[in-house]
């Protein structure tokens, strides 16, 4: 009982950090080590971009010492809940000029005049150089809020950034021969990844990990024909029948997790490296 009590007390004494996606949770854990409890509260079966937190979830987030946001329009729930501004960190505030605008629609209603809804690609971490910038912002916020000793954070940041640079270099080397090759993605998540490595990715709007219906397969067939693409990127692993159906269209399937959630059995770096390796393997040499 005493040991349990001491453990609980220790957990309560530790800094509490909440993030809006898995990559930021991974980065925060790497920077803080055991000195903080880093949570990513979105359930595994929910897309973190469109999570609808309950009042209890919001209370838990409000209680954190640091709330780490991705920015770039990721996690729109943040705009509809009350969070203490002093605890918020937008990790992409310094890299706004590197955002990719995806769509823009202008509409009006009533007599209020017209206005635009600009879409931004938000999966920044799929470009490791942008992830590097996010880790720098995160480390600065941790130090500013005294959540960990400065020297420890600096050492952890150096290691993490070295890992991300190595990941980037490995991906560049592995995907070098894919320049000019068109890929089809089941969901529009790979903008920053494609830009970083000079890939051409055409996206559809399929549900992640689901069996495509006939219309979707017809759309894929037409897209494949128009673009001469031979590789299909899946956000999450679908049923085996889906692989068979797309393979029948002459496409090679690659599961490339977007890592908004963690993938069982692998860290951010391991999963990313594994996905890059799988993509490089199926690509025509």
């Amino acid at each position, binding site marked *: 009982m005493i040991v349990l009590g001491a453990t609980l007390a220790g957990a309560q004494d530790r800094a509490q950090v909440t993030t809006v996606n898995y990559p930021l949770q991974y980065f925060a854990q790497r920077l803080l080590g055991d000195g903080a409890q880093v949570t990513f509260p979105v359930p595994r079966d929910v897309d973190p971009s469109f999570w609808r937190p309950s*009042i209890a979830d919001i*209370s838990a987030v*409000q209680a954190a010492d640091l709330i780490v946001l991705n920015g770039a329009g990721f996690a729109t729930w943040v705009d509809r809940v*009350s969070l203490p501004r*002093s605890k918020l960190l937008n990790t992409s505030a310094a890299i706004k000029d590197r955002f990719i605008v995806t769509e823009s629609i202008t509409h009006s209603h*009533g007599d209020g005049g017209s206005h*635009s809804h600009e879409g931004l690609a938000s999966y920044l971490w799929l470009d490791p150089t942008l992830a590097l910038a996010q880790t720098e912002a995160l480390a600065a916020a941790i130090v500013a809020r005294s959540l960990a000793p400065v020297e420890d954070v600096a050492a952890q940041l150096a290691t993490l950034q070295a890992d991300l640079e190595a990941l980037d270099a490995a991906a560049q080397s592995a995907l070098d021969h894919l320049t000019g090759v068109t890929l089809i993605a089941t969901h529009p998540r790979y903008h920053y990844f494609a830009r970083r490595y000079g890939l051409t990715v055409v996206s559809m*709007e399929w549900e992640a990990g689901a069996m495509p219906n006939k219309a979707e397969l017809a759309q894929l067939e037409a897209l494949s024909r128009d673009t001469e693409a031979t590789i299909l990127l899946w956000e999450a692993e679908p049923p085996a029948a889906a692989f068979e159906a797309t393979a029948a269209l002459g496409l090679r399937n690659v599961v490339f997790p977007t890592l908004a959630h963690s993938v069982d059995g692998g860290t951010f770096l391991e999963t990313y490296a594994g996905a890059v390796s799988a993509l490089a393997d199926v690509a025509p040499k």
Partner: protein
Amino acid sequence: MNALYLAFAYLRYHWGRSVILTLVAALILFVPIATQILLSSSERALVARGEATPLLLGSRGSQLDLTMAALYFSDERPDPIPMREVEAIWDSGLAVPIPVHTAFSSAGFRIVGTTLDYFAFRNLEIADGRGLSVLGDAVIGSGVAATLGKGIGDTLVSAPENLFDLDGVYPLEMPIVGVLAPTNAPDDQAIFVDIKTAWVIQGIGHGHEDVVTAAQIASGSDTVANAAVVQYQRITEVNIGSFHFHGSQDGFPTSAVIVVPNDTRSATILKGRYLDTEGPTQIVEPAGVIQGLVDRIFRIKSLLDVVTAIIAIAALAAIGLAVFLSYRLRAREIATAVKLGARRGMVLRLLSAETFTLLLISTCIAAAGAIIVSRNAEAWVGWLLALGS
């Protein structure tokens, strides 16, 4: 002892006259003391609120209007400043900025749009319910709850800003999710919402039926929906997902920004950045502004003191006259006492005892009144200050 007994018996026998004399004397003693207590409490309350707010950022103009709007939620409407000013202070790392949006009201109480940092800054505690969580939530001060008789589960509707802007400012129904513990400060008389909710009231953010299809987004076309598109006037679990804001948050308005510097050096640097008299914004020290106001009030208080003194002298003269006349009326009674063998000293002692007893009872009543005022001064002053706004 006998003189006191006889004096009390006399006063009791003439109870009507005694009561009037006692009350008049008690009032003469009580009024200046109570005025002094209330004014001192007012000064403390005003100055304390000002001193608890290190710096205030707002549009250039009347410093008093800015301070009254941001600290006391008065009816003054300083020109709004853009939220990029808040971000600029965040980016400086010199202070914590807390925006305060006070443009709207509901049921006669000011709606204060702010961030959760405000509650921590003012040490406001939730007495009932919970704090702000989602867009549209409202937390009310204890005074609002008592006056309107509303609590958790009830709703408030924002009032249109003006009759000529019915299209621009839609009334928004806000559920009350929490009631604050009393603070005897203007916070008791305010309705708190997230600043994003204030922007929804302002029409900068809104929720409506989906007017944009996926195909239109894909083609990047313009879509025009007519006025029949339903704009939601209540934020619910079902429609909250449709609420959105137009434009960059940096350009959204706030009435003022409470600035809490990290230290004296940071405060000095920040003040230096807003010295340009041509700039659209100014930074003020509310304590100084409030002290100026208090000084003005106390100049009026000096006048009040003179008036009170004149009235007190007149009242004392009236009492003296009443006592003198009563002695004249009792001339035969006194003469009879002397004939019965009472010495002049004895008669004098009897009259002195009567006067002393009257003054003693008056003093006790005045002291009791002063104690009541003193104990409730903070609450009454808080209410009076809020009433004034």
